[in-house]
């Protein structure tokens, strides 16, 4: 295939770790030959050139489903050429600066500043500084306001984009919600803008941004003014009358009909999750009160078994991967889960392809299924009770009961399992020492059950291995806990030690998560526009790759934060119910009123039923699709028949 030569020499590539990250050439990667021909002949192209940027290393980005989906959607369009770029690792970063090589796309090795659009997918807050790194290495001005007619349009999307405020000044365009349709509407507008430059009436960049504001789901940060006040909070005002005041996320109504990449790009080198993914449904029926994904992805929309089986078959054939993961928030909630799993296993029969299953609600069916699935054997059983007591589980609305855990484990232990992983959170709202100690107690009762089963059945038991993992509660936007404070570091350390002191068996291991990064995550997750200069200054002092524990330098970040007159507490504090939150101009469909009522239910230790049992009226029914109507339709039907 035709492409530019690699801008790096063999010697350069041999100096860095994993040079295969930087050379492309993967199966199913798309190079638009027609565009290259045009470029060769005339030096320009009518194609919209879109660089899909992933602000982390290649191996992580290549496991990202959003990248694969949107890459595919855009390249199906005859007027768009989408290529990929990833954050170069530190060794390559240094080399590129030393040799003055600009960051380039993997497909045609084109410097990113020659693209029309750079689109970043943001999956976690800690990757923000890598966005700055990629802009920097491309020689593109950081701030939106400093970019001119010849610079690419910089846009982003992804789950953390719902509160993009800390990064808002760096992006021209932000896409809220599911991107398959929105991104094409957006690309069309940018292409109009691009083509208009060749005419007598060229559109300006400012005109383009105004035109994009008309697209539902698109947020143009530069069209708003922002002020802060301790009483009323963040205040965002449109600069012009016709700019929308509320940005409502986009969703795909029918997942059976939307394009799904059954021929994703297959990395040549081994990557983090070396498997192909089948997305089963979007949304989650559960409503755990700490879980951002559970609210922002609503409503639940399932794909049909037929579509899934066909997509699974094609994925296996087109990628050659020997493992397929089912991807969704709580996959075993898929209404026809047994049918789907069995169907796929049948398809893979004799192919040495394994199905990797998410944590299941164990019953005899799923145990039988897990027997057939090799990968779960290796990794053991996983439960996420999240809290040690039923009281606290009711507070967070985590619908898992101890009886269920114990009855599942009994079955599993009888079946010969001996590895159990338990996930909890520390620092949850209303948590007491009693809740913390109960975690240790739960683990030791599981240990006792294991030996009881051994005694009852007389079977030879293997060495038991229970891992208790705790992460730290992070109050996230668009959850009922968005107003909560985060415990202070001292308090969290105390609780962690308390738990550690109560775990005494050598069969039980305790693994914990780093505090500092959780604190910084809160700052970024609940931050506002005051953080942009902080992030830029930190980056310019060499702070990036924050998602990598070894490279995250909390103390240096604190210094930068304080030098800008801000503190962690500005973002980790309890927000008042009256103040305007930095993300109040975005609607994910779930109303603020509903989130507030859920918060109050939490304090009363009252649970809320799943969407499938009983619609709680969260507001997402405004989209007019999905689970929200399944029950009503069924009930209406029953009512009609009787």
């Amino acid at each position: 295939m035709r492409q530019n030569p690699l801008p790096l020499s063999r010697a350069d590539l041999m100096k860095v770790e994993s040079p295969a990250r930087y050379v492309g050439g993967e199966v199913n990667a798309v190079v638009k030959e027609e565009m290259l021909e045009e470029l060769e002949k005339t030096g320009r192209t009518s194609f919209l050139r879109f660089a899909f940027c992933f602000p982390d290393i290649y191996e992580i980005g290549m496991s990202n489903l959003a990248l694969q989906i949107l890459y595919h959607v855009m390249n199906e369009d005859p007027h768009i050429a989408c290529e990929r770029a990833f954050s170069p690792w530190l060794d390559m970063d240094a080399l590129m600066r030393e040799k003055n090589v600009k960051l380039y796309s993997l497909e045609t090795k084109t410097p990113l500043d020659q693209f029309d659009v750079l689109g970043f997918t943001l999956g976690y807050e800690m990757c923000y500084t890598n966005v700055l790194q990629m802009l920097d290495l491309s020689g593109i001005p950081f701030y939106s306001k400093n970019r001119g007619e010849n610079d690419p349009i910089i846009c982003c999307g992804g789950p953390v984009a719902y509160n993009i405020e800390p990064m808002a000044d760096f992006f021209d365009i932000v896409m809220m919600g599911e991107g398959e349709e929105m991104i094409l509407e957006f690309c069309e507008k940018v292409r109009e803008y691009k083509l208009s430059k060749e005419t007598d009436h060229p559109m300006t960049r400012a005109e383009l941004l105004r035109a994009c504001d008309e697209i539902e789901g698109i947020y143009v940060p530069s069209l708003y003014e922002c002020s802060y006040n301790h009483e009323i909070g963040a205040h965002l005002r449109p600069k012009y009358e016709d700019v929308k005041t509320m940005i409502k996320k986009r969703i795909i109504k029918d997942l059976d009909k939307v394009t799904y990449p059954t021929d994703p790009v297959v990395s040549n080198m081994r990557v983090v999750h070396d498997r192909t993914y089948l997305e089963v449904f979007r949304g989650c029926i559960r409503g755990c009160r700490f879980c951002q994904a559970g609210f922002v992805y609503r409503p639940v929309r399932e794909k049909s078994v037929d579509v899934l089986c066909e997509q699974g078959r094609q994925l296996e054939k087109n990628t050659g991967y020997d493992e397929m993961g089912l991807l969704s928030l709580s996959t075993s909630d898929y209404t026809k889960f047994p049918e789907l799993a069995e169907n796929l296993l049948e398809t893979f029969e004799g192919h040495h392809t394994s199905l990797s299953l998410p944590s299941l609600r164990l019953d005899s069916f799923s145990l039988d299924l897990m027997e057939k699935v090799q990968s779960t054997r290796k990794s053991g059983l996983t439960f996420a009770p999240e809290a040690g007591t039923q009281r606290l589980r009711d507070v967070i609305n985590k619908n898992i009961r101890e009886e269920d855990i114990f009855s599942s484990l009994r079955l599993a232990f009888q079946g010969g399992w001996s590895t159990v992983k338990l996930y909890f959170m520390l620092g949850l709202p209303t948590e007491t020492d009693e809740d913390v100690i109960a975690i240790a107690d739960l683990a030791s009762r599981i240990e006792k059950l294991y030996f009881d089963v051994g005694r009852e059945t007389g079977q030879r038991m293997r060495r038991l291995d229970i891992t208790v993992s705790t992460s730290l509660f992070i109050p996230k936007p668009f959850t009922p806990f968005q107003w909560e404070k985060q415990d202070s570091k001292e308090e969290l350390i105390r609780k962690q030690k308390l738990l550690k002191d109560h775990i005494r068996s050598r069969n039980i291991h305790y693994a914990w998560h780093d505090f500092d990064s959780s604190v910084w995550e809160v700052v970024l997750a609940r931050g506002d526009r005051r953080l942009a200069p902080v992030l830029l200054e930190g980056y310019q002092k060499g702070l990036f790759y924050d998602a990598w524990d070894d490279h995250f330098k909390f103390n240096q970040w604190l210094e930068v934060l304080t030098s800008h007159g801000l503190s962690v507490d500005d973002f980790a504090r309890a927000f008042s119910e009256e103040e305007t939150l930095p993300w109040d101009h975005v609607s994910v469909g779930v109303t603020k009123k509903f989130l507030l009522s859920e918060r109050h239910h939490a304090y009363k230790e009252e649970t809320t039923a799943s969407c499938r049992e009983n619609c709680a009226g969260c507001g997402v029914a405004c989209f007019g699709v999905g689970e929200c109507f399944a029950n009503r339709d069924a009930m209406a039907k029953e009512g009609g028949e009787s």
Partner: protein
Amino acid sequence: MLQSELEKKMTTQAHQTAYVQRCRFAREGATTYLGHLDLMTVFERAARRAELPILYSQGYNPRPMMVFALPLGVGIESTCDYLDISLECPYDAGDFAKEMNAALPEGLRILSAKSIPEPKDSIMSLVTTASYRFEAKGIRPALLKAMEKDALIVTKMAKGKAKDTDIRPLLLAVKSEQDEDADVVEIITLAGSANNARPDLILQSLKQYCGLDAEIAENARVVRTGLYAGNYPDTTPIEDCPVRSWSDS
């Protein structure tokens, strides 16, 4: 018994016969930067995409039965490498090569395949000698100079430790060419699991003892051009080696 040996034994017990395709392959372009393990995975996935009846090992963690004659280091191209791929059933060698090539990423190509009976000697054990072509400014005189030395001590990293080793005994001969281009040279070296000349170490020695500029050495193009069995100079290209099968006594 090692796990791998155990699995192999179980495999040969479960399947009386494996139908082996002995493949000669080339690599260039982006795939040059893959390490050996990644390269194996790439071949495996290509075979799976091509839906070829690959034979898997038995046991806890079944792996496709694929054996490479000699690992190909990162950054080394090849015009002539070999691997054996075991199939569950007989398969036309021409079709096999064609189907694999349609599924392999750009840069990797099967040049020819040959159906052979399950070999008694692993393809790895056959390799004694390799040839490499180096392309870099002034590399021929530098290498000729190296051949005149009694010893070429270089430092190699093994298991995180630096170790001095003499690579001169591993260098057998420099092929003479008619046009004697100073910037291209082909060398024959010892290869295989016992004594193996690594091209990067050869370049290192040229840098250290024969006045080759460091940057030129690092940017040298390295192409493996052949793998052979037998004792030099009586060597046979791997594809021409007779195959001893299990039924031969």
